[in-house]
């Protein structure tokens, strides 16, 4: 492997390891760090204690606020399961068939059998009484309670004038994606999400006024045990989404919907939770779709041959009021290998009513593509028969579930299908002209060799394959993908970056129209008008990647001959955009775009990693022009360590940037700064 240390270094490192061995014996693990003590300090109890005390407390407070201040009526009997939901015949999972009814026809008995089968399979995989050993350990775990959420106040003045402003870099127009920063042109809404040991992994929502002066209007702190907090803003409604880990309970995917008519005093309108961790979400036409995956314990009790319902049925909570999803709302996937539910609920963001449409399938999901009409969930299936590398290397195949989004928030099952390999991320999927296209990386199909190849598969409305390309770029993985109308663009990488242009205008016979090989690779592709594609990723030489980020402008007007017509290299930086496309922000009216890049000059100068800056670029006459490099206002403080080495703390990470009018706004862990778009000069800043 070219990334492994130099052989001489390895040899010397081994010598060091041997040399240090005599000391190892002299520093045994202190008693305080033994596992039983650590486990005793962890903020949770047994895994099977039902709902969140903490959520109840917080929500009780919240409901009171709503009733007194907004007069919204929350019915105490929640009508959860009205309306049409998913329908999947249990017998034909890979072709869901006609789905017009109100439920899947799954009986509780069907569900029980499915779980008993899963339990049996997992039991077979246990060896050496491992779990018995685990069960016999008796570590005293203490449950702790977290404080309910608090609202903090700040000052308010009149609103600023509206001009062009930054928006979340959504994959599909009209389908909003949750992010940590939202900008409505007047106000900025930001969630600090950094894992912070001092504060205990807390997420905080900050609402700021952008103009005429950057100021904090209010801060809402979320209690501990929440993660991945993101938000949506639509008009005067704000939704916070997160996974929470109630002490002593199961993880919950939760939504808190606020009325922010008064930006200084957001009012909690309603809360919604469903079991499991947040997988993804979308906001389509005022309807919030929340997807979560819930792992179901297989150590359930069986009483007289029956599994008690509460052990295996999914649960949703409206304002903390639990509602069990009946078996008829759950679609069974006979091939599902994991005892996990994929839950989909849709909520009306503007309504104060505690109502949702919910449905589940037994089978976990991993990536989600969503347009205004349908939602596609990719579910990776690993080969459980092969060796470890096969099992964990690349997914053997990916099951695709299609769900139609109907007016009124009803989610209706469309079809199911499968493709070889696994998609990289949501940009590997797309629907156009009634065809679903997906780019995947997997093992070569024919000879079952472990060689990695890539696929582009085109599926029809029933998710049946109509065409495709196989065995593309052997030995390389897809690093980025983008489908734009009739064309698809793929970047694979081993040592150089082939950009493939795929002509999909005939869905039955897609073909490689053109190819361009360059050093480095693009980890993210963004369309720029009809003619260009912006690529962002590690720069490289013929030998592999280097310590720099390359921004490329590709001319794709001639599919047969894609050209890199301009490139910029940001030395000593790297990018995480492949995992987080929402870092990218476009200011179309000024032909500008920007994104944070991680700095690692740090390692040469003893300045520790983690810092990042916001870089802005201009597209002018078919050329990329470097604009500005904007830094957070958080201080750099040199720290001396106990070994005499120098350190700089890593709080200087810019997570997001956006713009309003003629100013850029960049956000880091505890601050926001405004910079002039024209001169790149610091105009204003606040800390929070």
């Amino acid at each position, binding site marked *: 492997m070219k990334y492994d240390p130099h052989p001489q270094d390895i040899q010397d490192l081994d010598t060091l390891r041997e040399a240090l061995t005599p000391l190892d014996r002299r520093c045994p693990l*202190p008693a305080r760090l033994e596992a039983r003590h650590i486990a005793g300090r962890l903020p949770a109890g047994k895994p099977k204690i039902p709902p969140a005390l903490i959520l109840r407390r917080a929500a009780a407070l919240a409901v009171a606020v709503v009733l007194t201040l907004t007069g919204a009526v929350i019915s105490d009997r929640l009508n959860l399961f009205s309306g049409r939901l998913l329908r999947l015949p249990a017998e034909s999972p890979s072709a869901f068939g006609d789905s017009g009814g109100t439920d899947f026809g799954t009986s509780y008995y069907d569900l029980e059998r499915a779980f008993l089968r899963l339990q049996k399979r997992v039991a077979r995989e246990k060896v050496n009484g491992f779990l018995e050993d685990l069960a016999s*350990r008796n570590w005293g775990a203490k449950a702790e309670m977290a404080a309910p959420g608090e609202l903090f106040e700040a000052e308010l003045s009149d609103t600023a004038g509206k001009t062009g402003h930054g928006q979340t870099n959504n994959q599909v127009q009209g389908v909003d994606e949750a992010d940590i920063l939202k900008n409505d042109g007047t106000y900025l809404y930001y969630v600090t999400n950094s894992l912070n040991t001092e504060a205990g992994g807390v997420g905080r929502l900050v609402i700021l006024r952008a103009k005429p002066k950057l100021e904090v209007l209010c801060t809402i702190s979320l209690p501990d045990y929440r993660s991945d907090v993101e938000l949506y803003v639509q008009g005067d409604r704000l939704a916070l989404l997160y996974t929470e880990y109630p002490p002593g309970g199961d993880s919950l995917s939760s939504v808190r919907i606020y009325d922010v008519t008064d930006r200084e005093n957001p009012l909690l309108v309603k809360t919604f939770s469903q079991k499991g961790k947040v997988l993804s979400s979308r906001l389509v036409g005022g309807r919030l779709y929340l997807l979560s995956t819930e792992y179901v314990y297989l150590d359930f009790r069986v009483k007289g041959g029956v599994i008690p319902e509460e052990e295996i049925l999914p649960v949703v909570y409206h304002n903390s009021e639990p509602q069990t999803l009946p078996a008829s709302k759950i679609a069974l996937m006979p091939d599902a290998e994991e005892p996990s539910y994929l839950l989909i609920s849709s909520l009306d963001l503007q309504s104060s009513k505690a109502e949702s449409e919910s449905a589940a399938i037994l089978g976990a999901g991993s990536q989600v593509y969503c347009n205004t009409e349908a939602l596609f969930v990719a579910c990776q299936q690993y080969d459980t028969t092969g060796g470890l590398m096969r099992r964990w290397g690349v997914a053997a195949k990916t099951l695709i579930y299609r769900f139609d989004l109907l007016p009124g928030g009803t989610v209706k099952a469309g079809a199911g299908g499968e493709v070889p390999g696994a998609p990289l991320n949501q940009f590997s999927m797309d629907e156009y002209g009634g065809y679903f296209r997906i780019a995947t990386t997997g093992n070569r199909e024919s000879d079952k060799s472990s060689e990695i190849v890539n696929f582009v598969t085109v599926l029809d409305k029933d998710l049946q394959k109509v065409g495709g390309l196989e065995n593309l770029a052997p030995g390389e993985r897809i690093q980025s993908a983008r489908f734009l109308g009739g064309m698809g663009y793929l970047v694979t990488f081993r040592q150089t970056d082939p950009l493939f242009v795929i002509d999909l205008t005939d869905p039955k016979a897609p073909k490689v129209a053109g190819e361009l090989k360059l050093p480095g690779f693009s980890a993210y592709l963004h369309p720029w008008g009809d003619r260009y594609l912006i690529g962002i990723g590690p720069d490289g030489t013929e030998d*592999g990647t280097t310590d720099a980020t390359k921004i490329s402008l590709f001319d794709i007007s001639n599919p047969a001959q894609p050209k890199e017509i301009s490139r910029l290299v940001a030395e000593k930086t790297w990018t995480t955009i492949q995992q987080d496309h929402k870092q990218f922000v476009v200011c179309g009216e000024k032909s500008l775009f920007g994104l944070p890049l991680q700095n690692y000059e740090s390692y040469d100068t003893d300045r520790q990693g983690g810092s990042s800056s916001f870089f802005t670029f201009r597209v002018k006459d078919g050329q990329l022009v470097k604009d500005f490099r904007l830094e957070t206002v958080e201080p750099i403080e040199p720290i001396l360590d106990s070994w005499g080495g120098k350190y700089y703390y890593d709080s200087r990470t810019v997570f997001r940037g956006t713009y309003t009018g003629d100013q850029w706004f960049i956000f880091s862990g505890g601050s926001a700064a405004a910079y002039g778009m024209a001169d790149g000069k610091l105009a204003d800043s606040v800390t929070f």
Partner: protein
Amino acid sequence: MAYDISHLSYLVQQAQAGSTEAFGTLYDSLARELYRYALYFLGAPGPAEDAVQEAALSAFRSVRALRDPARLRPWFFRILANQCKRQLRQSACGGETTSLEELFGELPAADAPLGRALEVRQALAILPAGERDAVLLHVLGGFTGREIAQALGCPAGTARARLSRAMAKLRKELEEHEI
């Protein structure tokens, strides 16, 4: 890692769903390596214990971020490495490097291997913290270049370069002391 990947995967899922027992088992498999890392990095047992304990709590809180159970170890070390750095920042000038006797007990005068080990430990101290990270992860954790990169959150090429620079310095330092 002593566990087969399917058990590891099971434990990680359990831990992600809130099982302290499962998490404790995962932690147990790494505890010694984690402590030694913190001890060598921070130079004193007290702060090292704090760092490992905090890292374990952080790890538990964020265990849902661990997507691939096979990457438990680099993931955990990354949390610890960050915690160690944070502690250095908080203790500002740090200062409290414990004497070798305090650290390792009474040292026999004529123990050649031990003397050599102490020389190596001293030599590690000359490295900037960023490079010491990389060396300790390889030496104590048995990490590959790619795993070091994962643990430190830098590109693999950078991790390799840091290791190389560190080794060049160590060679020079240890040669000067005729080891």
